């Protein structure tokens, strides 16, 4: 069955350079003398260490807990001792360091007790499957590193229309997915079946770019072996960036993911082949994610794919592949189109590291940035843009720091794929300008937010000072009034002397009432009562009870009054704080 494919806008043909690294079969990389595991290997919150320095850990043992929903735990890639928990350089373009757990391997590579293996995944509830995947620390291995279990939620409908397995691997040089599809197609197919079950997917497509015929055949063969007819294997045209999620979804379904939305909003889930294989290993073998295929390529002795434990230093991998040919000029983590150039080689491989690309000074493929000519508005960039933006206008406004206009031209829709930059005849570092503009807008927004908070605080302080002043004045006034009233009363007393009680009808009524009460009391005393003939012990008891009662009454009468005061002051505070933010600053 050949499904209809859709051609996304733009895109570019780039030289592949894939042959240089996909000739050999994949071998495991050597276990290094120390593994440095950053706690932040995924999108979301960094994991939190759950081991201490000096602890003995086993392979696959959890060493850091997921911190919150969008996060992933980290497991020990091999057995050994926790040597340190501290800041180490990580593969981040800024060259910064971050908190890492360092393991000194003991060489035994001894497995911890793993999760129970699932014999039949179809009998497992999808939510339980998600939990296993979550506990295994699986994140998207295509590059972004989004925690996988979140994607495996079919949403309120209980099913998704299309599950796309991404085996397109459109970036030049990278062949780790290619190698995985060639060598572990059966694992990928099993993984697909599990994800299909978890998502209750109606249609499942695995997409492979047509420059990887061996990988495609391998997948086809595995599907035949499983006699699996519900999964379509599709070859898509090789055109960068065909493997980008948005573009791939369009190619397969003809639907565009609306802006500011996720694929799930159009009932599509996209998953990388590597992630799919990891899901298989977690469900069928109970193994957490501790290693991955990494392409080691570029100007090195023997470019190839290695199965690398997370935390392995890139430097050692390069050495294992024959070392750098000449002097290293730049290290790219990722592909040449979207990868990041790093400051040094001694950086650990993490979950999202798919490729290590070495550029030596002798390289003819990579060059240092040339002199940038002015934009001649040739429009090649607009033709190449897979999003359909107008890169030359974005550049123009970013350069002029007219950021509102840049946003008018949808700056934030830019995926930084680098197509415009690649084709630019003027050699303008376009993507760099967009990154600059985005960062600058972000910074300014934060600054305005800060300024707003500061302004609000200042206004509240002013308001509070005023209020206190007013309250003080009010109290003062009341006191004064009370004092005056007292002195006035005294003056009255001295002036008129004691008034005749009987002349006032009110007072006369009160007096009469008091008389009546007295008479009643006297009458009561004469009547026989059940307390008349009490024993001494009984009397004593009554006295005691009375004492307690009065005590409690006194306490009760105090308490509510205090509470009332508290409540009143709270209300006053709430009102004042509600007023301040709405206050016009001009007032």
């Amino acid at each position, binding site marked *: 069955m050949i499904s209809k494919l859709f051609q*996304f806008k733009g895109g570019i043909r780039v030289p592949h350079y894939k042959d240089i690294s996909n000739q050999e079969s994949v071998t495991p990389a050597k276990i290094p003398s120390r593994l440095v595991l950053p706690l932040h290997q995924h999108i979301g919150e960094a994991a939190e260490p759950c081991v201490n320095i000096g602890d003995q850990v086993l392979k696959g043992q959890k060493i850091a807990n997921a911190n919150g929903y969008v996060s992933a735990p980290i497991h020990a890639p091999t057995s050994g001792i926790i040597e340190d928990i501290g800041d180490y350089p990580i593969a981040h*373009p800024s*060259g910064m360091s971050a908190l890492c757990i360092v393991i000194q391997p003991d060489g035994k590579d001894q497995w911890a007790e793993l999760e129970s293996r699932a014999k039949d995944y179809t009998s497992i509830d999808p939510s339980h499957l998600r939990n296993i995947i979550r506990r295994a620390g699986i994140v998207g291995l295509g590059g972004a590193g989004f925690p996988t279990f979140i994607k495996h939620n079919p949403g309120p409908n209980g099913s998704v229309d299309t599950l796309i397995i991404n085996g397109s691997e459109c970036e*030049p040089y990278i062949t780790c997915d290619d190698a995985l599809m060639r060598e572990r197609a059966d694992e990928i197919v099993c993984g697909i079946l599990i994800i299909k079950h978890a998502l209750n997917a109606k249609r499942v497509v695995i997409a492979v770019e047509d420059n990887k015929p061996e990988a495609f055949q391998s997948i086809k063969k595995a599907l035949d072996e499983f006699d699996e007819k519900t999964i379509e294997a599709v070859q898509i045209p090789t055109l960068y960036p065909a493997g980008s999620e*948005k573009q791939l979804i*369009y190619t397969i379904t003809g639907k*565009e*993911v*609306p*802006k500011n939305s996720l694929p799930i909003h159009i009932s599509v889930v996209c998953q990388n082949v590597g992630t799919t294989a990891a899901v298989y290993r977690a469900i069928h073998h109970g193994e957490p994610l501790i290693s991955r295929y990494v392409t080691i390529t570029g100007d090195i002795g023997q470019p190839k794919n290695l199965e690398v434990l997370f935390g392995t230093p890139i430097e050692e991998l390069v050495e294992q592949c024959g070392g750098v040919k000449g002097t*290293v*000029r*730049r*290290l*790219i983590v*990722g592909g*040449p*189109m*979207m*990868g*990041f*150039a790093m*400051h*040094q080689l001694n950086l650990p491989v993490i979950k999202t590291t798919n490729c290590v*690309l070495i*550029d030596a000074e002798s390289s003819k*493929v*990579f*060059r*240092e*940035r040339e*002199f940038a*000519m*002015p*934009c*001649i*508005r*040739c*429009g*090649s960039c*607009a*033709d190449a843009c897979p999003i*359909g933006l*107008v890169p030359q*206008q974005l550049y123009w406004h970013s350069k002029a720091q007219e950021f509102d206009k840049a946003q008018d*031209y*949808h700056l934030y*829709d830019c995926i*930084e794929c*680098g197509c415009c930059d*690649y*084709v*630019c*005849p*003027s*050699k303008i*570092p376009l*993507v*760099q300008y967009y*990154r600059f503009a985005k960062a600058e807008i972000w910074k300014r927004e934060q600054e305005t937010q800060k300024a707003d908070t500061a302004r609000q605080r200042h206004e509240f302080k002013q308001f509070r000072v005023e209020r206190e002043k007013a309250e003080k004045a009010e109290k003062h006034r009341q006191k004064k009034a009370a004092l005056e009233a007292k002195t006035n009363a005294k003056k009255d007393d001295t002036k008129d002397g004691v008034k005749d009680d009987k002349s006032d009808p009110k007072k006369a009524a009160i007096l009469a009432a008091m008389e009546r009460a007295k008479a009643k009391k006297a009458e009561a005393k004469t009547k026989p009562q059940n307390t008349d003939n009490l024993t001494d012990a009984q009397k004593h008891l009554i006295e005691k009870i009375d004492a307690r009662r009065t005590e409690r009454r006194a306490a009760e009468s105090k308490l509510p009054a205090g509470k009332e005061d508290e409540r009143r002051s709270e209300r006053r505070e709430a009102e004042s704080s509600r007023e301040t933010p709405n206050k016009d600053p001009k007032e």
Partner: protein
Amino acid sequence: MSLYTPSSPHFHANNSVSQIMLKVVYALIPGILLYVGIFGFGVIINLLIAIITALSCEALMLKLRKRAIMPFLTDGSALITAVLLALSIPSIAPWWVIFIGTAFSIIIAKHLYGGLGYNLFNPAMVGYAMLLISFPLQMTTWPLPVTINDNYLGIIDSFLIAFSTPSATELAIDSISGATPLDYLKSQLSLEKTIPEITGLSALYGVLGGTGYEWINLLFLAGGIWLMKKHIISWHIPTAILGSLIAISSVFYFYDSDFFTSPLFHVFTGATIIGAFFIATDPVSAATTARGKIIFGIGIGLLIFVIRTWGGYPDAIAFAVLLMNMCAPTIDYYTKPKPYGHQ
């Protein structure tokens, strides 16, 4: 030691501004060679004067503006301005016409607007318009094709015509020059003759358009199509210009073919082809969005017809292009493409 850490992407297509510009010049070469064959060697002298003037002015302006000289001098943009302007000036014009026009193009129309990439108007057309208004006699004295005129102008003749004083060359020029097909048509139409009468009797008119010009234009067309195939220019602007010109001229032609020329004549006479493929497609001053380019091209096509038919000048490419250059930024603004995921 810190490694080199530029922003991605880390590698680039093997192209450059000068490659683009040079290809445009290459695409003009076949037409230029035939031009020499039909109208004499004068056009080569024009080209040389224009190129030398353009590069000198470019270097001078870059120096004055304190810019890097070599990258801009070799980018080929001044070269194209020179070539296009030289082809627009009669091949028997005196040297100073070409010099003034080219200098004006480079200094005023290009560098005073900010140099490469910043000029609002097509520099060659600004130079041409200035010359046409300032020196109408020199700018409208065109040689006759060799098929009509037996005096073929060789290197020496052309050199003399370009650099001698006007009085010395006046006679010679009279014998070799004549009205262009568009000129002649305009003047004859004003004498209340019908088009079949005019074109049927004069040797100025060939199969497609003007004698001689039609074949040169065919070669320019071939060059333009080659540029499209090489993705140097997109199909939008040329197609829109030719399409709209053909459409509007067809309407009038079928309404009254005695007073309105055929669409074919419009396309293959005058500077339509070179204008559509080489002048209007100058990326700096044209619209850049796909829809914008089509609107830009339609505007030029319609203006060509209107100016040729009812305007005061026989040909109209320069004015049509300049008028639409003015509209390009606005057209671009209102024809932004819809990005992925936007409704």
